[in-house]
Each structure stands twice: as C-alpha cells, then as structure tokens.
C-alpha cells in the first residue's frame, strides 16, 4: 500500500516536472479543447484519405505500398502547380482570389480550389496505374519482402523526382488564396474564433470524399465487385472478375485518394520534401490501430490519431510524435487485429 502510494507520488512528480498536468489543464480550457479537437478532426480526415488508399491496397492486393506517402506528397506538389495555374494571382489564372468576402465570388473561388485539388488527384491516377502494372504486378506472387523493397525503391524515386521537378524549397499557394478562404465565415458564425475556415473546407471536402468512398464500396456495382475480390479473389475470378483490372483500379483509386489528401492539405500548408514520409508512418499507425485492411477502421484510427496528436501539441509538444505510436502499441498488445476486422467483409 505504502509502496504503491510512493510510486503514485513519484509518477505525479514526474508529470508535474514535465508540465504534463499543466498542459492537460490548458487543453481542458473549453476554447482550447474545441479548437484542438476540431484541428485534430481536420488532420484525421486528411490521414483517412491517405490511410484509406493504403488500407484498400493492402486489403485487396496484399501489398504494403511504402511509396503511398510519396503519392500524397506528389499530390500536394502537383496541386501547388495546378492551383497556381487555376487560382493564382497571375494573369493566366481562371480565377483570382477575391480580396474580401462575397458570397458568390468566395464560394465560386472555393469551388475552383476544389476543382484544382480534383485535377491534381486525377493527374496521379495514371501514375498509380503505371506503378501497379509495370512495377508491382510482376511481383505479386513473390515474397512480401520483394514488395517492400520495390515499393521502398519507388518511394525514393518519387521523392527524388519531386525534388528534381520542384526543387527542395517548400511549395505553397499564394497567401491571398488562404486569406480568401479564411474570409468566409464558418466557425465564427458559431461564436468560435481560432478555427480558420480553411480547416472547415478541408473537413467538409474530406468528409464528402469519405462518404463517397463508403457509398462506392457499399452501393455501386464496381465497389462491390472490388469487395468481392478482396473477400475471395479466386471465387471472384470464377465469376468473371478480372483480377488484373481490379488491382489496377484499386491502385489508381489509392493514388487518387492520397493525391487528393495532399492537394487538400496544400490549401492549409506548404508542400515540403518530408511530408510523404511522415504521412506514410502515421497512416501505417492508423491502419494498424483500425485493423489492417479495414476501411471503417481507417476512419476511426485516423480520427483517434489526428485528435490525439493535436491534443498533445498542447499537453506536451515533445510527446506529440510518440503519442500515436503509444496508441498503436497498446492496440497491438490488447487487440492485435486492430479495432475493426479486415477489409472486404464490411466497408
């Protein structure tokens, strides 16, 4: 009894010294808590877009694509170029950012911005198709070590290509683009300041894409054929499903989602050389927490990791990176299969 009390006191002392308790008190301030949670949900949605592609590819193709994070980064870089062309301040741009909020102009501008993100993500589709058909398809039957080595090589190649094309400096949209979006009142209408409208935009668009993804897999013929292939590839083949075509489609979809996530994130921040690696690592944590290959698990895992990491920026910034991994370790120890089942049986 005495020993455990001393241990508790010691633990408390460590927490006090490290400022964790003070950080927790800060986090629990209503405004801070709401803002950090909303930011975490925004980050969770982006993580979901990346992890969804990763988990679908893993669940159906049985390939852990280490280059997936670079597709996310590539999406951001491509969006920097496409966005600069479509909504930049240059004379060639389709639409310049409005200087102040006007319902029609501002929402039209957001529409063009989303169009830029969609175009950027679509540009990644043929890249995904080439990756699957040329590089990954020949080694499906080989040991997974080959797949890891190959996709790691693709990671490095894409990262180098990014640097070759855009250089090592971060790429971002014009500041006026961000300002134009933030001028649209969103959370301010709810009396909440501190959450820029860019966050709202990312959350809403990602939510729509996420809902669309679930609809695709649960209601459309193609989506259900993909699920059937994930559940039993051989039986699906015996019913006329072409595995090659399905795998290419899945890989293209994964590339689209990663690219779209990168493009949407560019609205908020700059594309930079390291963003692909950190996205890959966190996405991996997400799919381990949610269940390898589970789309529903990816949603829950992404929101848990996104919110937790944002909370930790207030509680104890030095633990921000470690917190997601701590969750992953706990899940692996308590529920090794992840919070949800495997891909295919349920979307």
């Amino acid at each position, binding site marked *: 009894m005495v020993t455990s009390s001393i241990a508790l006191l010691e633990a408390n002392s460590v927490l006090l010294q490290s400022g964790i308790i003070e950080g927790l008190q800060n986090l629990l301030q209503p405004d801070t808590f709401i803002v950090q949670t909303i930011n975490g949900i925004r980050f969770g949605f982006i993580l979901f877009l990346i992890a969804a592609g990763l988990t679908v590819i893993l669940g159906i193709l049985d390939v852990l694509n280490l280059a997936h994070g670079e597709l996310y980064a590539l999406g951001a870089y491509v969006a920097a170029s496409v966005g600069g062309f479509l909504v930049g301040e240059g004379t060639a741009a389709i639409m310049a950012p409005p200087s102040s909020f006007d319902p029609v102009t501002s929402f039209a501008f957001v529409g063009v911005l989303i169009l830029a993100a969609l175009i950027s993500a679509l540009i990644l589709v043929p890249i995904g198709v080439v990756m699957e058909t040329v590089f990954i398809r020949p080694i499906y039957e080989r040991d997974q070590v080959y797949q890891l080595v190959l996709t790691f090589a693709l990671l490095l190649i894409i990262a180098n290509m990014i640097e070759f094309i855009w250089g090592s400096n971060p790429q971002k949209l014009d500041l006026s683009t961000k300002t134009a979006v933030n001028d649209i009142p969103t959370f301010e209408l709810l009396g909440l300041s501190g959450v820029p409208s860019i966050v709202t935009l990312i959350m809403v668009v990602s939510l729509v894409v996420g809902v669309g993804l679930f609809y695709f897999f649960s209601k459309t*013929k193609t989506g259900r054929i993909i*699920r059937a292939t994930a559940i*039993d590839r*051989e039986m699906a*083949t015996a019913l006329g499903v072409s595995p090659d075509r399905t795998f290419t489609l899945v890989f293209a979809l994964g590339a689209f989602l990663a690219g779209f996530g990168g493009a949407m994130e560019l609205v908020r921040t700059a594309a930079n050389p390291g963003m692909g690696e950190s996205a890959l690592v966190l996405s991996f944590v997400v799919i381990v927490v949610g269940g390898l290959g589970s789309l529903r698990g990816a949603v829950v895992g992404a929101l848990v990791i996104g919110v937790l990491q944002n909370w930790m920026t207030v509680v104890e910034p030095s633990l921000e990176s470690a917190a997601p991994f701590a969750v992953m370790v706990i899940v692996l120890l308590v529920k090794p299969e992840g919070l949800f089942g495997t891909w*295919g049986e349920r979307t």
Partner: protein
Amino acid sequence: MSETLLSVTNLDAAVEGFQVTYDVDFAVERGKAVGYVGRNGAGKTTTFRSVMGLADILGGSIRFKGTELTDLRPEQIPKHGIGYQPEDRKLFTGMTIDENFRMPIWTLGDERGIDDEDAAVEDVYDIFEELSERRQAQVENLSGGQAKMVSIGRALALKPDLLILDEPLEGLAPIIVERLKEYIEEINDRGIAVLIAESNVQHVPEMVDELYVVERGEIFDSGDPMEVSQKRDVQELMQGSGQE
C-alpha cells in the same frame, strides 16, 4: 442428336506442383446430368477446378462448346456458359443473398446477353423459393443448407449451359439433402446440364444420366449410374468414403 457441351480429354492436372489427375476423360452432353464420384482426395475438385481454369494443367484438353478452355484465363471461362459452385461455398460475406446472386451479372451480365438483371435474379429465386423471403439477409447468417443454395444460385445467375457442383450435398442434414436434390433436378429439368461431384455415391445415381467413378486421379469406371454404382468393386472402393 445430342450435343457434347464439355469434353475433357487426357487431363493431367496438378496442385502446388504435385500431379493429381492422370489422363482423365469424360464428357457432358447438353441438358444431361453427370455424376463424378470418388473418395476424398481422388481428384474430383482438381478436375472441376481445371475446367474453371483454377488448377495447374500439365496436359490434355478441355473443350466447351468447341472452345478450348485451357487457352483462356480463368475469368474468361464463365462467360462461355459455365456456372461453378465450389466445394466450400465461398460466398461473399458481408453481403446479402441478393448481392451474391447479382455479382456474376454485374461482372458478365452484358457478355451473357442478360439485359434484365432483376428478371435474371428472380429466375434464381424461382428455383430457391425459400431464399426469396430472405434476400436481404447477410450470407454469414444462413444455415449450411441455405448457404449451399446461395452458392448454387449464384452459379445459376448467368443462365449457364452447364452447372458444375462440387459436393453440393456434403455435410448437410438428410432432409436438406433431399430438398437440394429436388432443386438440382429442377435445374436440370430446365435444360441446364449438371456435373455433380460427390464423395458419397449413395445420393448421386438417382439424380444423373451418367456416372463416373474416379480414384487416385484416374477414371475408375463409368456408365449407367445404377449399373456402375451396383458394381462390387465400385462399392468396395467407395466404402469408408462417407457412405451412410
């Protein structure tokens, strides 16, 4: 004059590098029912999987309506008019009965000339009426017999000329076996040729027009179902293979 739908000649097939069938010859004529019985491990499933392009074929020929199937990829075979119920059902879990029935139509309906998806599915429910009331049930919630029916129904959805059934009666209660036999006979009465594998010779002869007995990957005997099944060496062979 009868038309040969499926003609298997000198089939040598392997599983994971080991040869399982040796010089297998058999044929199925349009509209007929053919039994393919043998003990567990005799090579029935490998033979059927060979027809569907799912086994490693070392030699021989498999022709269906004049098309050499061994030249085709597995996904190209069903569109020629072969429906397949695998040994272990292999239903798409997490989906409903209805979704399982529609799946082949979604993949090959156009190529099979099915322009009314709902009508094609209703044709399947017309045979398996007891599934009609549960069409939105998840397949993992079905009994063993109902799951077999869904697996057969799914194979029927593309209106095949030949239905391949791999042990459709295996592991079912006697009353369910009798119901399934009636369903299979009804399917055959509709003009669809049926090729049935069973490890229990007892149920098959009364359902089929011709019977093949397979042992150690080779055709052991074949001919009139009643005559073949009554032969002493066949009965001795099949003893211990699950006969009741």
